[in-house]
């Protein structure tokens, strides 16, 4: 009896004391598919997005409070770790993969190069607890956050009370990451007929559609699938890719097809960052592929490109740079 009264009182208090949240409407770019993320389970609000943004930039998520999400996902390089083939975590520990660029995540079903993570809400757990990344425990993160008055206030305004939990922390991080939408590149403006390609870019676009678009499908510039793209195996890393997750030999050496948006700034390329330049990537597809049994079917037919054609494709790829995204103040360090 007492228990019910308490619950009832709590409900009344919550209803009366509930502060209205400022809802945030994520703009779905014209012609894009429906997002995969279920926003009804985690409704975007300005307050939650801000909390997520503060968390994203806070090294408190790491064991020794030295690195934040932004350490390996820096805005100016399309939220990836530029210049590092393999990203490094706390105490300069080197991981075994190249940090992926973060954008348009609401349209992704799986995360990580091997799709180990199946929902954006759980994605942040992986780097937080990985030994070579933040090497922390989510439960310690919650304990640390609980000691900081600023977070008490941020959780209060985001959730209506100052309870700090794993669920709320992860949902807030998802919220911020969901707002990272890149859809204002020159390519997008050309598609909306607000701009025009140069002749070279146009040539590159046609070649791209012919040779690359079956995996790097517009408008996301990824088909979100896992493919074996014929990279020779790195005998030091011995990374089997998707097979680690599914344990199916048919998934050996398959990695998630990355988006090409903002590719100008997200170098180095491939899951292990083996290529520094786009020209090296194109050379791999024309001359360097290993004919694995499970090579992506669209790559079995050899790709032949002249060096001029390669230059044209690169000119097109540079139209995928979205400066508004790279310099959007809403995504930067929260001052």
């Amino acid at each position, binding site marked *: 009896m007492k228990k019910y009264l308490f619950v009832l009182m709590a409900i009344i208090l919550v209803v009366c004391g509930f502060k209205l949240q400022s809802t945030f409407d994520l703009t779905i770019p014209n012609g894009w598919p429906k997002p995969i993320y279920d926003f009804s389970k985690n409704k975007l609000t300005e307050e939650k997005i801000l909390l997520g943004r503060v968390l994203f930039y806070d090294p408190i998520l790491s064991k020794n409070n030295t690195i934040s999400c932004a350490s390996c996902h820096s805005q100016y390089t399309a939220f990836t770790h530029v210049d590092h083939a393999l990203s490094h975590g706390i105490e300069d520990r080197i991981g075994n993969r190249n940090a992926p660029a973060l954008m348009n995540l609401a349209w992704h079903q799986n995360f990580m190069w091997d799709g180990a993570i199946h929902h954006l809400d759980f994605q942040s757990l992986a780097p937080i607890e990985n030994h070579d990344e933040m090497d922390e425990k989510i439960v310690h993160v919650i304990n640390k956050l609980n000691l900081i008055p600023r977070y008490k206030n941020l959780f209060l305004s985001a959730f209506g009370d100052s309870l700090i939990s794993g*669920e709320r922390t992860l949902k807030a991080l998802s919220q911020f990451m969901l707002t990272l939408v890149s859809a204002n590149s020159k390519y997008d403006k050309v598609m909306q007929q607000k701009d025009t390609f140069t002749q070279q870019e146009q040539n590159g676009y046609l070649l791209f559609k012919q040779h690359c678009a079956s995996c790097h499908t517009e408008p996301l510039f990824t088909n979100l699938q896992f493919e074996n793209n014929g990279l020779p195996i790195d005998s030091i890393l011995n990374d089997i890719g998707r097979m680690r997750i599914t344990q199916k030999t048919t998934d050996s050496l398959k990695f998630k097809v990355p988006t090409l948006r903002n590719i100008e700034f997200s170098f180095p390329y491939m899951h292990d960052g083996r290529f520094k330049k786009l020209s090296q990537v194109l050379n791999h597809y024309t001359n360097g592929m290993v004919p694995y049994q499970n090579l992506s079917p669209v790559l079995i037919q050899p790709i032949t490109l002249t060096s001029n054609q390669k230059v044209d494709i690169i000119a097109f790829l540079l139209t995928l740079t979205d400066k508004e995204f790279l310099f959007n103040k809403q995504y930067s360090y929260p001052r």
Partner: protein
Amino acid sequence: MKLSRCFVLILCTSYIGVFAQKNTCIKLNFKGLINNLALKLDSNYILPNNDTINIETCRFYISNIQLIHQNKTIFFDSTLAHLIDMAEPNSMSIELLVSKNIKYNAIQFNLGIDSALNVSEVLSGDLDPTMGMYWTWQSGYINFKIEGKSKNSPSRYKQFQYHLGGYLYPNYALQTLRFKTSKKPEITFTLEVDKFLNGLDISKVYQIMSPTENSVLLSKKLAQLFKVK
């Protein structure tokens, strides 16, 4: 305004009063057994196979509890999942609020988290990832976790760690258990931990930490070691 709120409060309280009279609690107790005695964590035991073991952690999820009468589900627990932790006596009992004159002849529940819950958004309470029952490197709940020390373990510090789970076929580790019982108001379920460990070759398999075939095999074995008392 204040008056109307008062009125609502009175109305609700009287409603709960009526509601409470018609309902009763069925309490499900979970108890670890080792060598026929109640399991104590951090204590040494000798198993029939002569291994000396010490259990530090034993936790698992119970979900989807149903009371069944003549093969029909007549009560369905609305709590998504209960985390049973042998280190937390309070967690080892689940109370079901049922109608006072309920009649049932079987009870069913899942050991672990089903695939639908596994692919949903991040959840709170017992399912919050801070509870330590979520794999971080690969998505998915750990259904059952048992950790400790064994004389036979070849690992550093003689540890064994079994984290059992997996929500994708063919490595789907969830187990559905059904027991014939019509007990009220308390039912006790025991888990014979010694039988689980005694049947394992800890010198070979001393850790399972991913959703593999072994994880499913051990989950099936565990399911057989739950008994209703």
